[in-house]
């Protein structure tokens, strides 16, 4: 029962993540938008790598591709690769104190942005550089809150079921 509840929570958080990604922001701070969906995927794949790993990440990535009008597969590729690394090192990452974990998440986000940048480069799409590095910085700041929020959310969920 507990896992079924968490599945609902997982889907709900991802949908919320996609919604936050689409939320309109003023153009001046638009680049400074955390990679919500990626952070959520890192959280879930670190918590429950058996259930949610690359497949979930790929589906979420395809959804983002449709929402953002990028090439189908661009976000999917970057996300599934980053989540692959997360699952690979999830035991290690669980041991990390918060600061170290936050830094490694920032590293993963940076890798994700680099993959997007690289694919854009191959496809010949140019964008200002801050579009790539700003989310890394913001995700670094946002991660402690995201993980705290998610811990709170999932602590409660099993007791209900």
């Amino acid at each position, binding site marked *: 029962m*507990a*896992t079924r509840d968490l599945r609902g929570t997982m889907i709900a958080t991802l*949908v919320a993540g*996609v*919604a936050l*990604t*689409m*939320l*309109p*922001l003023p*153009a001046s701070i*638009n*680049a400074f*938008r955390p990679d919500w969906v990626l952070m959520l995927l890192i959280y879930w794949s670190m*918590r*429950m*790598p*058996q259930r949610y*790993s*690359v*497949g979930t990440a*790929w589906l979420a*990535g*395809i*959804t983002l591709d*449709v*929402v*953002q*009008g*990028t*090439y*189908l*597969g*661009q976000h*999917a*590729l970057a996300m*599934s*690769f980053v989540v*692959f690394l997360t*699952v*690979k090192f*999830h*035991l290690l990452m669980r041991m990390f104190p918060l600061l170290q974990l936050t830094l490694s998440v920032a590293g993963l986000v940076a890798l994700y942005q680099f993959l*997007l940048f690289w*694919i*854009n480069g191959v*496809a*010949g*799409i*140019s*964008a*200002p550089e801050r*579009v790539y590095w700003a*989310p890394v910085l913001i995700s670094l700041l946002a991660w402690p809150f995201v993980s705290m929020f998610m811990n709170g959310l*999932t*602590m409660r969920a*099993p007791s209900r079921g």
Partner: protein
Amino acid sequence: MARTGHTDVARIPALGVRTVALLVLSLILMVYDHRTQQLDAVRSAIGVVVYPLQVVVDTPARVWGWMVDSTTSRNDLELENARLRVQQRLTRAELQQLLALEAENARLRDLLEARDRISGDVRVAGIVSVDANPFRHNIVIDVGTRDRVYEGQSLIDAKGVLGQVLKTGLNTSQAILISDPDHALPVEVNRNGLRTIAFGTGQFDVLDLPFLPNNADIQPGDLLVTSGLGGAFPPGYPVARIATVNRIPQQQFAEVTAVPEASLNQVREVMLIYMNSDSAGAADPDNGATDGD
């Protein structure tokens, strides 16, 4: 939590294989999407699923707009009404002149035996307040193939050209703005017909005109209109006004920037221009040297 903690010490089954398969699948999809249009059906299918979410995300902005509208004081409304009335009177006066000019133009064109200019149908569409793509200057509009929107269709607002439709879905479409770094628009200087290309820069208020020689007859304040070359845009719509002209003697081309006439980052409503296919050729006389996007 404790129960999962024990189980996932075990190896995740076939993680590497699955990852590689998904990466390869992504690559194939991307190449396919880049080369062909065939994935658009998949895209619009998923788009239909995502559509409710877009509506939800757009709701706060819509509600806010509605609240601003419905709480405006009577005084403000009267002022606005008076302003609009004056504006309409002016516009109508201009329109009278325009009708006469149009007739004169048609007569002259008859004399020259030139083909008619395009006068396309126009429909109004709303902008869905979702942020589309951080790498591009895109907007999402609330009309799709259901409303006969097609790829490459021109978008204007009351003041000038905004961009063109990039991808169509069933209910929504994505459009690229002229300020996108990958957008190039064939334009001509209204004053003297000098033709060039205006590139987006990634900033909403700057267009770049890199191909004007140092001795080109251009000065700040000149109006740029679409030239219609390339066939993507109908000719004669205002695009931008020249802001700076910087002539550097050692270099072949002058550094020229322009400010778009349309308010690219504050529109809520756009107009779509329908060009009928047989007259589309008229917009694209002899050469296709420039490219509309």
